[in-house]
């Protein structure tokens, strides 16, 4: 780059002498234009330098723009292709290509730019499998890259990748993460990201994370989301009650939608007017009262922007009593928990039984829906509790108020008391699904208004048994409510008690809905039918036999449908969180992964815009031409001076 400067200076030094008569004009012109002259001189030098620079850049034939511009360059040893296979990735735009398909194309194109020996490892969100692949060209043909009805657990995917990298001693690596950035999948508020950030940061090798943000195409899409299905006994006989919600991503004028409600394979179509953003659909179908068997069905709407959410499945079983068992110290907490478990025993066919750790052997576990535990360890009853949970029961554990061991390998830590007039506030919770989810009409539970004076957290967790997920946390990040799957059942741990001195949970506005939801969950196993979401939990349930009722070859970890598992019907649908349109923004992701080398490439999919980079050497040739033209104009610009002369009129 010093060359044009040298040429320019040498040019200036080469001058000849001219004897000159009109010195007076020369002196005047020099005086008046010395500043302008200097500026012009520097501009000419700058334009010459730029022209040479652009020429060099054009000769280098660079790539720029979008995803490919980001990945072009030196290749690492290992590239992890992290693919979000959640149901929302099946949205299509004008190009009739889904977000997932577009992501695979971009992976392939990006890999095509890299030279050298690069190892490609595919990590997919549906099964959390991480395995090496032969290049990125044929990803679309792999079964591990096909569409699913599942959600994506991005923290878990990042964790799996990290484990693979450590186990396989990968060298310098890059994570190419393709996702539609759905907030429900990324769960950036989860404390898991802090741990991931530290663990990635501690790796000795260079790690770069390239996130390919594939914004979903803005095409009209209506989701059919099952809310509830159950058999109800009425005076006239048993009735199947099915409730679903039709949600529009582009609410506008009302539309009439043909909705097909099928009981098993027999369907009936009905026009439903969908107004605004969502419409509730409630159908009641008579069931022969002597028909005690569980059944299933589906609700379907016409195909639109995303084929994965146009059909939902439901099951219904026999009516059963919702029994819960309370094992707790005597006191206020036990009384409140008993009421919350069975607020209206006769009206709702519920009951809350009492027992003690020593009497667990006498319990009819097969008739229970939920175990509520607020005591020390179970001793010999431990195996019964675990078996109950694995069979589909729900176990809810409350702190004993003293540092002690608990059931299922848990140990309680110290009791903490908020100082003075302060209290522990719950500031974040899962509102889309889980025990603290919004109500059916979209209202939040009043979690934020809870007042917790005392809490007791866990000291130790048996991670071989289950991995806890936080459903709600206090301001200081400690969990208020945690849970985990254990077999086909679930374990939930609450870190405070509904008694005076501990919290105001006894008000019931949070406690009762939570306990009733957990009870309903546990009661499903008793009716011979269950509704759930597609996901890994089913694959990991340890069920010996599962059979797809609604199509061959389906997998409960990725495909929606009705399955039979251990004699029970299970309807699995797209998780409700997949319908949430909230997206993760770049600044949020950067905060969550602060300290890691992160590149965020925003890409728009499917609206006719192709997010591939292009060679931009023509741009540099054009810029070089402009620079030379500018230099020429600056050098010859004086020819454009208009001369004005006084006319001769003598």
């Amino acid at each position, binding site marked *: 780059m010093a060359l044009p400067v040298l040429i320019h200076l040498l040019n200036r030094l080469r001058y000849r002498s001219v004897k*000159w008569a009109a010195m007076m004009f020369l002196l005047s012109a020099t005086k008046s234009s010395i500043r302008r002259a200097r500026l012009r001189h520097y501009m000419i030098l700058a334009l010459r330098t730029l022209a040479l620079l652009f020429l060099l850049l054009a000769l280098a034939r660079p790539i720029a723009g979008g995803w490919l511009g980001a990945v072009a360059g030196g290749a690492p040893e290992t590239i992890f292709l992290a693919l979000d296979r959640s149901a929302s990735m099946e949205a299509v735009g004008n190009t009739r290509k889904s977000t997932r398909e577009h992501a695979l194309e971009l992976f392939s194109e990006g890999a095509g730019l890299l030279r050298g020996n690069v190892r490609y490892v595919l990590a997919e969100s549906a099964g959390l499998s991480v395995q090496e692949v032969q290049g990125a060209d044929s990803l679309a043909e792999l079964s591990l890259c096909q569409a699913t009805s599942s959600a994506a657990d991005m923290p878990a995917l990042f964790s799996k990748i990290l484990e693979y990298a450590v186990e396989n001693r990968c060298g310098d690596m890059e994570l190419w993460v393709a996702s539609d950035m759905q907030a429900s999948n990324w769960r950036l508020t989860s404390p898991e990201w802090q741990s991931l950030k530290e663990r990635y940061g501690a790796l000795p090798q260079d790690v770069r994370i390239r996130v390919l943000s594939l914004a979903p195409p803005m095409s009209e899409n209506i989701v059919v989301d099952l809310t509830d299905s159950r058999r109800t006994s009425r005076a006239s006989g048993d009735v199947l009650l099915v409730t679903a919600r039709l949600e529009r991503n582009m609410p506008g004028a009302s539309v009439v939608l043909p909705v097909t409600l099928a009981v098993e394979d027999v369907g009936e179509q009905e026009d439903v007017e969908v107004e605004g953003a969502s419409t509730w659909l409630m159908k009641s179908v008579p069931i022969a009262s002597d028909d005690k068997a569980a059944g299933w069905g589906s609700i379907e709407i016409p195909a639109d922007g995303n084929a994965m959410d146009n059909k939902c499945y439901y099951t219904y079983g026999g009516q059963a009593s919702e029994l819960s068992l309370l094992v707790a110290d005597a006191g206020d907490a036990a009384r409140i928990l008993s009421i919350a478990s069975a607020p209206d025993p006769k009206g709702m066919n519920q009951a809350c039984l009492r027992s003690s750790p020593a009497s667990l052997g006498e319990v009819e576990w097969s008739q229970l829906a939920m175990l509520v535990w607020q005591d020390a360890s179970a001793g010999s009853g431990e195996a019964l509790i675990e078996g109950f949970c694995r069979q589909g029961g729900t176990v809810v554990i409350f702190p004993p108020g003293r540092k002690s061991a608990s059931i299922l390998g848990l140990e309680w830590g110290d009791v903490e008391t908020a100082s003075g007039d302060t209290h522990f506030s719950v500031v974040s919770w899962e509102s889309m699904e889980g025990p603290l989810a919004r109500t059916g009409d979209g209202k939040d539970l009043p979690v934020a208004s809870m007042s917790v004076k005392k809490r007791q957290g866990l000291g130790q967790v048996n991670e071989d048994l289950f991995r806890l997920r936080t459903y709600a946390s206090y301001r200081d990040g400690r969990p208020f409510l945690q849970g985990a799957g254990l077999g086909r059942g679930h374990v939930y741990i609450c870190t405070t008690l509904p008694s005076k001195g501990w919290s105001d949970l006894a008000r019931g506005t949070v406690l009762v809905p939570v306990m009733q939801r957990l009870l309903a969950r546990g009661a499903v196993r008793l009716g011979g039918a269950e509704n759930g979401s597609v996901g890994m939990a089913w694959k990991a349930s340890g069920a010996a036999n599962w059979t797809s009722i609604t199509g061959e070859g389906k997998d409960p970890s990725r495909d929606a449908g009705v399955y039979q598992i251990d004699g029970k019907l299970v309807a699995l649908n797209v998780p409700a969180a997949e319908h949430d349109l909230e997206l993760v923004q770049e600044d949020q992701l950067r905060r969550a992964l602060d300290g890691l080398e992160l590149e965020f490439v925003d890409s728009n999919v499917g609206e006719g815009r192709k997010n591939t980079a292009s060679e931009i050497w023509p741009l540099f040739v054009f810029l070089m031409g402009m620079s030379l033209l500018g230099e020429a104009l600056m050098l010859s610009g*004086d020819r454009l*001076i208009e001369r004005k002369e006084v006319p001769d009129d003598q």
Partner: protein
Amino acid sequence: MSEGAQRDYLDSAVLSRLSRLTLEARAPMMGSVSGIHKSATRGSSVEFAEYRKYVQGDDIKHIDWRVYGRTDRFYMKEFEADTNLRCYLVIDTSKSMEFSGKGMSKFEHARRIAATLAWLLIHQGDAVGLVCYDNKLVKEIPPSRSPVHLRNIFDSLDKIETKGHTDTAQVLHNLAEKAKQRALVVVFSDFFAEVDALMDSFQHMRFKKHDLAVFHMLDRQEVDFRFDRPIRFVDLESPYSMVTDPSVIRSGYVKEVQNYLNGMKSGSREFGVDYRQVFTDDNYEQILASFLLERMNKKPGSRK
């Protein structure tokens, strides 16, 4: 024509063509010899001008008897006295006149035009003198009509060398006072000086009733300033020099020159100076023909 044949700055063919034209003064001249130019005074000369009443003592041979026959009154014919033109050819011989872009220098071009004019004047019976100057008078030959005088002028033009710096205004002021009678003063210079000072001297000349004609000698390069590389400009009239990149300052230079030339034109017009710009690559015959014809056509009652 013999004088012209010996000088390389004279072309006999041009002289022959131009001799058909007459150099005329724009204003009446004063002179004791009858010539082709109108005299400022009325006298008993060849051409009848007007009548006046007879007064005792007038020469009766000028009485117009036809008028007497018609009017019974005696009237005297008044005649305009044709007299000779006195012309000073004033040539700037300072060092700046030595400049030559391509071809002829300003001085050589001025000499050619001045010499041709001198020849024409002598051959039409007018008196011509020569003044050469730089910052002072270098050579002065008073006006004369004699052909021998023409040789003196040409000899001086052959020998003169350009040197020194210019002070045109002072020389013109001195000449304005020195020339007692009205004269045609033709100045050949590049006039590289303050316009105001020059206009003062022009005004002085005009005040003294001289017919002032100015040939502003210029070279194209001095006006256009076209150079393709940095140049060290060495002043012809001083030891000063400067290095500059003409491409950088050209626009400013051209603007300065244009302002100056416009000032010269407008000032000359204001003071009734016959001003013309002459570039060294201009055809001098056309310049002179234009100069002569304009004067012939603009003069009232001039001979065709």
